[in-house]
């Protein structure tokens, strides 16, 4: 995967990459702002929200962590659910590995930190257009589509959130459940995902009523996939790979 491409082809592909980045960056910034607001409403300090965005840099799990913390879930539960939610990156990393195998270990280690759904999708498309890897293109895709807008917008959201005295008056307390529901829809690509979501929601509510939201959320997250695996998958769905369409890192 190191076949050459002309400087003109590289320039053309990078121009296209920038075009693709623009729309995603706007979306990432929007959700970074919402994440910052939501985290602030849940009692996160600006420092806590920013460290999470910089170090974890995984939108859905960060939104989820806000819910876990607000629901009183113990830290080990938060960490386990975060690991499960973010395990999909294994697939992206494995797909990129053959393209980047001639880069140094240190460079690959650094590149891994900014690997998101969007970085994967943009850079793979760029590499395929070129017929080879373009490390600079990867960094452009990963940082400008999500890392920079997500973190700047988180900062703006968490600072702005501190200025709003009663967020529920403006409906801002509804952002979190609405965002979770919308993100969930983005991941439902077939019958199994639908069953996982339905059972996850039902089990989450039932167990929460009996044992508290912290336990309920974990139960929903673990039981939903089990129920879904017991559901036959139509052959036509087998080739569909769920990709986050939301612009979240």
């Amino acid at each position, binding site marked *: 995967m190191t076949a050459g491409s002309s400087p003109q082809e590289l320039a053309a592909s990078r121009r296209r990459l920038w075009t693709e980045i623009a729309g995603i960056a706007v979306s990432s910034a929007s959700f970074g702002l919402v994440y910052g607001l939501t985290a602030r409403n849940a009692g996160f300090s600006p420092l806590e929200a920013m460290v999470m965005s910089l170090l974890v840099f995984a939108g859905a799990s960060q939104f989820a962590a806000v819910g876990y913390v607000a629901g009183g879930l113990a830290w080990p539960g938060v960490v386990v659910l975060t690991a*499960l939610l*973010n395990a999909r990156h294994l697939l992206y990393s494995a797909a990129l590995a053959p393209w980047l195998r001639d880069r140094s270990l240190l460079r690959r280690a650094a590149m891994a930190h900014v690997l998101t759904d969007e970085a994967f999708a943009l850079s793979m498309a760029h590499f395929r257009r070129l017929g080879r890897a373009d490390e600079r293109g990867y960094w452009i895709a990963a940082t400008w589509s999500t890392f920079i807008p997500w973190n700047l917008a988180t900062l703006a959201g968490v600072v702005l959130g501190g200025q709003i005295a009663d967020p529920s008056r*403006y*409906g801002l307390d*509804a952002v979190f*459940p*609405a965002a979770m529901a919308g993100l969930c829809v983005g991941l439902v690509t077939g019958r199994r995902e639908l069953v996982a979501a339905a059972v996850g929601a039902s089990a989450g509510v039932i167990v929460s*009523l009996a044992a508290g939201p912290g336990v309920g959320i974990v139960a929903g997250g673990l039981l*939903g996939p089990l129920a879904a695996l017991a559901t036959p998958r139509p052959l036509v769905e087998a080739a569909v790979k769920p990709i986050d369409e939301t612009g979240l890192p």
Partner: protein
Amino acid sequence: MSSDLVLLAVLMAAVTYPSRAIPLLAPGIERLPERALDYLRLVGPAVLAALAAVSVMVVATDDGQSFHVGIEWLAVVASIALMTWRRNLLPGLVVGVVLVAVARGLGLG
């Protein structure tokens, strides 16, 4: 400024980074059984749905928890509907928040 959750963020990062890095740093090591990969793919919708449902349907009371029906459900329904229709999260969030704010302004929630 509170920093209690900084350690939580570090722990979350510590379990997130390996899934991003291991295949890049040690190709081949990530090969999990297909059943395990299927399970992991399904965790996302299950956890997110649980979070959404619990957030709007369960409230804390003096006696523990109780089932809640409220105007916040509208925001969730709007988000699901618009995400299904447009495949874009933002319009659903905006409509949901505006619906809830207007309903509360009218004294409905």
